């Protein structure tokens, strides 16, 4: 203790040792999905603007709503909606996986790989289902 105190009081401080960061580890599916969970969360944060815009337009009147409908119907709007839907469903399934882990289950190698793979396969499948159902609800592609 005495040595530590003397060291911090006099002379330039030595940089503290750092533990190795992400780049020294082999990338694994669980790692990648953990990163994707955070990225989709951040994207959904700003995607909330779209929901707010849609609701405000509906509350504002037919003209404002027609503008939102026009944007969402354009190719860029559909691309954004597709990405938003996938991010939402992926973050939701990833969240369920984290809740399972929070309860202390699913930590065996095969279990965690399965859960992680199920997140990505599930989110892509669900996104396509949502879009097919959405197109049918609109009365087919136009």
């Amino acid at each position, binding site marked *: 203790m005495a040595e530590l105190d003397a060291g911090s009081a006099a002379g330039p401080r030595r940089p503290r040792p750092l533990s190795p960061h992400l780049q020294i580890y082999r990338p694994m599916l669980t790692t990648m999905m953990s990163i994707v969970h955070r990225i989709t969360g951040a994207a959904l944060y700003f995607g909330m603007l779209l929901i*707010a815009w849609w609701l405000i337009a509906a*509350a504002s009147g037919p003209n404002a709503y*027609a503008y939102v409908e026009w944007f969402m119907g354009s190719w860029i709007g559909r691309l954004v909606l597709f990405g938003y839907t996938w991010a939402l469903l992926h973050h939701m399934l990833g969240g369920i996986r984290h809740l399972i882990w929070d309860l202390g289950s699913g930590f065996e190698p095969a279990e965690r790989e399965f859960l992680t793979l199920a997140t990505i396969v599930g989110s892509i499948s669900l996104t396509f289902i949502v879009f097919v159902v959405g197109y049918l609800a609109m009365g087919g592609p136009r």
Partner: protein
Amino acid sequence: MLTAARRVRGLGAAHSGTATFWHQRITSVAGVPLTLAAVIIVIALLGRSHAAVVQILGSPLVAILMLLFIVNTAYHMWIGMQEIILDYVHEEKLKLLSLMANTFFVFAVGFAAAYAILKLSFGV
């Protein structure tokens, strides 16, 4: 020097213990059915006229589900973005500004969306 008991009484660096962690879990559990409800509502409204959308979004059950979805999601994303900021932004002034901007953004977007639903519900 902090004894173990003293550290526990102070509830850690944030002085709130694991409250934020727990709130993020509560909002994530609530978020699953609420998100599914919101997705179903959006699909059901696709391609409908403005008048129909206004009527459906303003009906009590749909409006309550959408309000719960927005309030729950707003709190969840406030905690999430705060965690991201605390992980990556280390410069003190920038960190405080980012944390403030997070709060402003969440309140602005959340209240705007909630106001729109209330206006559709009460038709003012």
